[in-house]
Structure formats: structure tokens, C-alpha cells
């Protein structure tokens, strides 16, 4: 039997939690790299401080636009912009969801053969890579200024978003149910309708509500490149230095986004 002796070395060694990156070499490399990058990046920023200082007056003018915001003077324009945004949101969400259903079925590896799978995944990748505003530029060039370009943009973006998330959900379905329906001799459409659809329906409804919310938010910026909506009104207000109207538009956007977010959260909780 050995008596427990006081180990000074062990007592001096304080316990520390394991670091996030286990390998010390990699850890210090990441730290050094981050430091070097930060120095390089900060060094390459050119800031015109005199211009920024002059901007303080404008910042004050902009902030005073909020006290009180001017809803009245340009109410007609605001109303038109809002109606465009809302109609764009609704039509593009509906069209995007309808188009995304076949793509989602094709992009699920457990349903589709490889060529169809690759084709559908390629469509999803194209739709998701570019920012909505860039797609809007192309649609504006093709179909002209106005809400139709915005609607097409949002429908295209909805297509990629819905198809990707839905395809992932279809790949995760319970195989037993699908096999049970198939064993009854069901055809392909009955099989999809009675074994796949019921399993992904809660997610489909939840994602649709979420996308409706996103589409409204995005519709507020598409106006900057001429694709209609409330962003158009906002941009015009900024161009004319009508900060009161701009503040009113911003407040309306925040209010609608809040209402949308709350409603879509309610729908998702109710379904799931």
C-alpha cells in the first residue's frame, strides 16, 4: 500500500476546458491567420473621414424625419408601392411553391433516378447561388420595369429555397409507410399522394408560411433595381431627400414584417 503523497506538480497544473480546435498547431495557425487577415483587411479600407463628418448633418436630417414620419404627403405613392409589394409577394409565393413541388420530387435521391436528380439539383443550385437583386436585374432587362420582373424574381428564388428544403425532407421520410402503400398496388401518383405527401405536409405548410414572410422582406428591396414594390417608393424618397416619407415607409415595412413574422410563427407552431 502506498500512502497518498502531496503531488505539487499536479496541484500546480490547473484544469482547463478543452479548446474548440483540438490540435494546437491548427489552433495557433487559425489565430495567426485571423490576426494577419484582420490587419490586412483593416489596412486596405479607405475611409473619407471628412465626408463622413459632413454626413452628420444628413444623419440628423434623416433622424428628424422620424419625428414625426410623414405618411400624408406621398400617401398615394406609398399605397401604390405597398399594393405592388403585397401582390408580388402573394403571386410569387404561390407560383414558386407550385413550381418547386415537381423539382423537389426530382431532387430527392430516394425517388428520382440519377439523371433527373442531377438536373433538378442543378436548377436548385442556380436559383440559390445568386442574390435576388442580381436575378432581378436580369428579369428587368428581359421584361421591362415593373412588378412583373419582381414577381418572376421572387418566384425563381422561392423555387430554389422550397425545392431544396422539401427535397431534404422527402429524403428523410419513413420508408415503411411508402412500402406499405406500394404493396397495395398503388400507381406512382397514388403512391406520392398517399405515402410521401402526408409525411412532408407539415413541413411544406411551415416552409410556405416562412417563405411568404421572406418574400415580403425581399420585395422591399427589389425596387432599388426597378423591379417594383415599396422599395421603389423608398428609393425615390431618398433620392428627393424626403426623409419624412422615407421614415414612414421604413416604419410601415417594419410593422408589416413584424406582423408577417408573428403570423408565420403562429402557422408553423399550429402545423408542427
Amino acid at each position, binding site marked *: 500500500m502506498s500512502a497518498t503523497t502531496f503531488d505539487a506538480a499536479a496541484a500546480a497544473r490547473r484544469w482547463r476546458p478543452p479548446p474548440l480546435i483540438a490540435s494546437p498547431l491548427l489552433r495557433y495557425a487559425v489565430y495567426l491567420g485571423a490576426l494577419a487577415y484582420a490587419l490586412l483587411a483593416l489596412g486596405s479600407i479607405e475611409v473619407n473621414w471628412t*465626408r*463622413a463628418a459632413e454626413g452628420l448633418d444628413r444623419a440628423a436630417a434623416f433622424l428628424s424625419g422620424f419625428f414625426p414620419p410623414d405618411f400624408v404627403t406621398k400617401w398615394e405613392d406609398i399605397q401604390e408601392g405597398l399594393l405592388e409589394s403585397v401582390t408580388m409577394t402573394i403571386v410569387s409565393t404561390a407560383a414558386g411553391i407550385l413550381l418547386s413541388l415537381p423539382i423537389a420530387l426530382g431532387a430527392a435521391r430516394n425517388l428520382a433516378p440519377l439523371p433527373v436528380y442531377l438536373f433538378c439539383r442543378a436548377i436548385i443550385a442556380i436559383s440559390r*447561388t445568386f442574390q435576388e*437583386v442580381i436575378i432581378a436585374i436580369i428579369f428587368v432587362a*428581359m421584361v421591362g420595369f415593373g*412588378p412583373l420582373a419582381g414577381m418572376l424574381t421572387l418566384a425563381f428564388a422561392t423555387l430554389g429555397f422550397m425545392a431544396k428544403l422539401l427535397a431534404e425532407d422527402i429524403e428523410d421520410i419513413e420508408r415503411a409507410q411508402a412500402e406499405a402503400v406500394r404493396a397495395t398496388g398503388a400507381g406512382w401518383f397514388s403512391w406520392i399522394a398517399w405515402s410521401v405527401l402526408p409525411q412532408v405536409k407539415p413541413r411544406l405548410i411551415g416552409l410556405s408560411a416562412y417563405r411568404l414572410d421572406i418574400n415580403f422582406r425581399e420585395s422591399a428591396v427589389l425596387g*432599388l433595381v426597378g423591379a417594383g414594390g415599396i422599395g421603389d417608393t423608398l428609393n425615390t424618397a431618398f433620392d428627393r431627400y424626403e426623409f419624412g416619407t422615407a421614415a414612414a415607409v421604413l416604419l410601415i415595412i417594419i410593422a408589416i414584417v413584424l406582423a408577417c413574422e408573428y403570423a408565420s410563427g403562429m402557422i408553423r407552431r399550429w402545423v408542427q
Partner: protein
Amino acid sequence: MAVINRPGQPPLWKRRSTVQDLLVWLGWLAAVALTVACFQFISERTIWAFVWDAPRQGADLVGRMFPPAWGYADQLWKPLWDTINIATLGTALAVLLGVPLAFLAAHNTTPSVVFVRPLALFIIVASRSINSLIWALILVIILGPGVLAGILAIALRSLGFIGKLLYEAIEEIDRTQVEALESTGANPAQVLSWAIVPQVMPAFAGITVFRWDINIREATVLGLVGAGGIGMQLEASINTLAWPQVTTIFLLILATVAVSEWLSARVRHAII
């Protein structure tokens, strides 16, 4: 499940009662009618002659866009570096501001549920409802065009995103670890750093990398309103109808987004 009892016949099983069936159909009818009405609204604001011309315009556009102006790429490295800096520094700034905000907003760490929490939640919501392009529009008016406006726009938008997801993660932590530390007599700061922070660390890293990936995408278009990065070159090329240059920019954006997506997927995979 509804059962319809018919005299002299076995009962009929249906998924919904007749009234429920009718209500579901009415719901669908209303949704379709709303969508059609909205489309009608958009259609009235569309010059259809331009739209029917779109395939020809599209073919014409593609004809002008190819071959890409490869030589132009030499002028794009600096704007691309700026774009990456806008996204990265913007994310870093958002982390610096968003992490304290998340701890102030989370139910279990906030110093005051009545006073501090609603304020923190309001900042998070206001930041999230306004798109980074609109933040950029406002900041360019105040600070003048340049990279600084872009960094701040990205930071202001990401602040709410990081704050929201992180405070939700903080609220979902395992209470028992906190209790274990409290029972050893740890003070609140020790509980925070030894029980709460280690639990939310993986979520925090995942959220940050995810947002950085989104920000790379957003930063490519901030230049359209003058907030620096490759979008400035895009705007200039579109305004001068230099479509081969636009193609080069698109390809460069495509490559950057693909790399950032791959990188963020790798990091998230390693963490979670």
C-alpha cells in the same frame, strides 16, 4: 374522421365531414381567387408587348454577354477583396455587438426581464426587419459611398440575426450544469463562463459561419447603392451596357459564393 350513418347500409367512413369538406374547398377557392386578383393587379402594371418580346430580348442579352471579357477580371481583384472584407469585417462587428445583446435578451441571463429584455428584443427585431441593402442605402447617404458604409450595413443587419439565434440557443441550455456550478458557490460571472458559454459555443460558431456565408452573397450587391465591393463594378458595367464585363463579374461572384458555401459547410460539419 367522420362517420356518416345511412339507414339500411353500412356506415360510410370519410376523412372529413361534409361541412369540413366544404370549408376546405372554400379556403382553396379564396386562396386561388386572391392569387388571380393579385396577378391581375400586376398585369395591369405590365407592358405586355415587352414581355412577349422577352425571349428575343433574352437571346439578344445572352448573345451580348458571351464571350465574357476575361481581360476585365484584372480590374476585379481589388473589388472582390473589398467584398470579402465587407462580409468578414461586417460579421466580426456584428458578433462583437450581437453576443452581448443575445445575453441581454435571453430569459435566463438578462439582468432585468422588465427593462433590459424588451429593449434588447426591439433592437434585434428592428435590425432584422430591414434588409442590408436598405441599411446600405441609408448609410451611403450619411457616410458617403465606400467600403465603410458596406461594413456597417452588413453589421447592422447581421446583428439581429446573430442576436436572435444565439439568445434562442442560450434559452435552450441544460439547467442542471448551471445548478451544479451554483451549488459549488460559483459567482454569476463564473457560472456564465463555465456553465453557459461552453454550452452555446458550438451553436455560436455555427451561427457565425452561416451568417458569414450569407453575408458574402449580400456583399456582392451592396455596391449597387454605392456601398463598395464588386457590386460597384457591376453597376458601372450595367449602366454602360458592357454585358461581357457583367458576365465576368457574374462568374466571379458564382465562384466566390461556391467557395464560401463549401468553406462554411466544412466548418459547420467539423463543429456540429
